[in-house]
């Protein structure tokens, strides 16, 4: 859910968001409970087939998985040492497959549709005081904030370098926290202006 929706009119794009999330949830459940080789092969076939049918392109799906590398490598090494190559393949395969499947869903589903499903699912929790709209908004803001915070971090890094303090953690962390808080403050004001609390 990082705002990388690729517009399209494929059957995968047109499939209801609820159905896609249900299939994803089922896949994740099976991968968690029984990550067998057969499950991995079938799951990979579903994801590869879905990606091909959607037309989003292999590069977009791979891009969803790439940030996982720094987790996958140590996990793979650890599994190799502790449980052997077969288990390492299963664990790493399940991890990569899960992220690729989730990535395919976000690449082919608008955030608005995902949030509508979330709101529907959470609706029964109104009775215990959960506001589904508020939860959905928080998630949307979290998604939206990723590129904003990345931009702030890049600006702070440049400012730090311009002042010759490339290695100073404090020169990075303090302005980043301050700018992030200021952004949060402005965002809150903008939400109020757009009638979120009304």
């Amino acid at each position, binding site marked *: *859910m*990082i*705002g*990388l*929706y690729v*517009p399209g009119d494929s059957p995968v794009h047109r499939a209801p968001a609820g159905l896609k999330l249900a299939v994803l949830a089922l896949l994740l459940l099976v991968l968690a409970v029984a990550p067998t080789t057969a499950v991995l092969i079938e799951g990979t076939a579903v994801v590869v087939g879905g990606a091909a049918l959607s037309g989003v392109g292999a590069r977009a799906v791979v891009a969803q998985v790439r940030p996982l590398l720094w987790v996958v490598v140590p996990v793979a090494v650890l599994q190799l040492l502790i449980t052997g190559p077969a288990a390492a393949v299963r664990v790493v395969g399940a991890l990569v497959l899960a992220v690729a499947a989730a990535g395919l869903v976000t690449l082919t589903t*608008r*955030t*608005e549709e995902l949030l509508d499903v979330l709101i529907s699912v959470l609706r029964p929790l109104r009775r215990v005081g959960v506001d589904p709209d508020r939860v959905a*908004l928080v998630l*949307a*803001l979290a*998604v*939206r904030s990723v*590129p*904003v915070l990345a*931009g702030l971090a890049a600006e702070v890094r440049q400012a730090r370098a311009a002042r010759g303090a490339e290695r100073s953690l404090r020169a990075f962390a303090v302005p980043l926290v301050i700018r992030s808080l200021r*952004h949060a403050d*402005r*965002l809150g*004001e*903008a*939400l*109020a*202006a*757009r*009638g979120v609390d*009304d």
Partner: protein
Amino acid sequence: MTIELQGVTHRFGDRVVLADVDLVLAERRIGVVGANGSGKSTLARLLNGLVVPTRGRVLVDGLDTARQGAAVRRRVGFVFTDPDAQIVMPTVAEDVAFSLRRSGLDRGQRAARVMQVLQRFGLDGHAHHPAHLLSGGQKQLLALAAVLVTEPSVLVCDEPTTLLDARNARRVADLLSGLPQQLVLVTHHLDQLARFDRVLVVDAGRIVADGPPEAGLAAYDDLLAMGSAT
């Protein structure tokens, strides 16, 4: 629409940001100028209830911003300086649609309205693009589109062109000047106010000049020349 400020004073802690302001704003185009920290942004925020006065009251079409804020905000849209803080959804179309979430329109009607507004602002080609990939000028256009899609009667803009380059600033200013809405524009770009009906000059929390653009801007020039603008 008429906006009235009656004996408005606003404090942040011990600091008086606006003092004893009485205004009736009924003109179609109203400009607000003043130095940083003069109180002009607080004045703008008072107009749609984002800030409620410490003393006095603000009435929008007879509605008190302190007690009927929601109704006021449906009538008065607000555009901020930094569009990045105003855009709340990941993609362009979703952000505009967010403004319509309580409009009572169904999904199809919302999508049609969103596309209509995006076309008007030249953003229809970016409808499903991530909002953070837009240029600064496009982001400000998106922020404007997201406010105007709800068709407010009044638009308050707090320095909407300050972060833009000259070309985008001109584009946004031209767009603002062509809007049918009543417009209250806070700006440092004085040339944008030349054809306005009225200009308010704010200094140290007080309205120190109020009149047609020539008189208002001349008064602001005098203020700058005297070096007394805060």
